């Protein structure tokens, strides 16, 4: 159950898979994303509500053939240049996109977690998203006659999330902004969770989400594995790294150098965190 990250990625993620690395600004599974790049996976359909720089990196590294998303940007900074380059110039490989709103994506995960084939919402009406996405349809309420939007469930082959901690049985606990991680994990065929640390017991924490071990496949320790995003109670968001990514992502050469450096290095050890813990106050 608890294995090194490179082993977990090798076991769970395969070329051609639909993979969701979820995280809503907080707890983004960056270390796992980097390991996917290192292992040279290809033809992935990447899913995420808010693809940010780790998705920019995966796309720039040529891992993805399709992106399913609702907002793709460098939060608080600007655009994702590797994403733009792939969409507008097909570099390094063409990137197909399927585009939703946040409400649509969130409900697609909810349907996936619920074993339903689709979800309904009040959404999309009048927008050009509809005409450009066959996965947005309308459905009529059998009671009131109202028209609503319908979107199909998302059931990724693999969902990857990052959490604060796991116990030795592989039960996982996360807290703070928990986004759509519970639904993304429950919707998936296989689930990999990276954690800051493994502890003897998961003392309850306000606002926690607990993912029981029985719905997870592998847990890997990746201390600092959400950086440059943050892990509530462990370390803070490295806003400077987000800003710094803009210059790297903007330039194919700079990106290629960044990529060469990433793939030349071994994955970080599972031991003590790379970034300094910034206080553990719950």
């Amino acid at each position, binding site marked *: 159950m608890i294995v090194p990250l490179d082993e977990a990625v090798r076991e769970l993620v395969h070329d051609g898979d639909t993979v969701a690395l979820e995280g809503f600004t907080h707890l983004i599974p960056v270390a796992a994303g980097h390991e996917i790049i290192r292992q040279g996976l290809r033809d992935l359909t990447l899913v995420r509500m808010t693809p940010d720089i780790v998705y920019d990196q995966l796309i720039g590294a040529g891992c993805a053939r399709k992106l399913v998303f609702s907002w793709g940007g460098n939060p608080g900074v600007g655009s994702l240049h590797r994403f733009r380059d792939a969409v507008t110039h097909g570099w390094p490989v063409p990137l197909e996109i399927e585009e939703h709103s946040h409400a649509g994506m969130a409900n697609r995960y909810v349907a996936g977690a619920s074993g339903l084939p689709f979800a309904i919402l009040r959404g999309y009406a009048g927008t050009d998203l509809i005409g450009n996405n066959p996965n947005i349809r309308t459905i009529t309420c059998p009671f009131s006659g109202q028209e609503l939007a319908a979107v199909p469930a998302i059931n990724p082959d693999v969902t990857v999330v990052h959490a604060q901690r796991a116990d030795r049985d592989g039960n996982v606990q996360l807290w703070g902004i928990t986004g759509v991680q519970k639904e993304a994990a429950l919707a998936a065929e296989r689930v990999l969770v990276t954690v800051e640390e493994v502890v003897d017991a998961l003392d309850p924490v306000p606002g926690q989400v607990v993912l029981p071990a029985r719905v997870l496949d592998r847990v890997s320790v990746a201390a600092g594995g959400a950086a440059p995003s943050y892990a509530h109670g462990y370390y803070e*968001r490295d806003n400077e790294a987000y800003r710094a990514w803009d210059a790297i992502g903007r330039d194919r050469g700079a990106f290629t150098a960044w990529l060469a450096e990433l793939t030349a290095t071994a994955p970080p050890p599972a031991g003590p965190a790379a970034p300094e813990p910034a206080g553990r106050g719950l």
Partner: protein
Amino acid sequence: MTTVAWTSDEIMTVTASRSLCDGMSCFVGIGLPSTAANLARRTHAPGLWMIYESGTLGTVPDRLPLSIGDGSLADAADTVVPVPEVFNYWLQAGRIDVGFLGAAQLDRYANINTTVIGDYADPRVRLPGAGGAPEIAASCREVVVVMRHSRRAFVERVDFVTSVGHGSGPGDRERLGLRGAGPVRVITDLGVLEPDPRTRELVLTGVHPGVAADEVRAATGWDLAVAEGLEVTPEPTDAELSVLRSLTGAA
């Protein structure tokens, strides 16, 4: 233009903040809207109830968040809910008074584009996309748009309707089943536009001090109508400016 003790961005943000009343619930986008909402809460609207789409309800951040999911938002919130709940139980259910949005392109009916410039299949510029905006624009009781004025941004017709404003005119929102009133005000660095109650077309209803209506018309990509009795925005107060600058770190 007269010499002023504030920038055009500052009067835009101050004017936007004045759109928010004490006690309102406000769905806040990151960037200019977030700055304006936090300014309002620290000046005339201490009871403003801010929701960010990351799930932080009633948050009172101690500093401006860089992203919609900063830890400071979670720490300072009345409660943090999962993302599906913020969209389903709060936004879709019609509990939000005002949605505060930005835009890359906006047209004469206040339709919003944050998806692509150019053709969708072969875009000139790929933008971040929809995020929460389509449903914010649909479900909040009203919407306020904050964006800088330019002919590139204020266009006759948006290249892509990411979020519906007033569609192609009267009755469109009702036909589409959109339950909120839609954009009631667009606040720019030059002035204020509001939909004509009859035609739903955006009309210039206010200019910031020192800005002439013709300047605004020149920065607008359609033949912008000017309201009779055009208002001039009251200058930012010292208090507003000092709070704004403490927020943005430009003191």
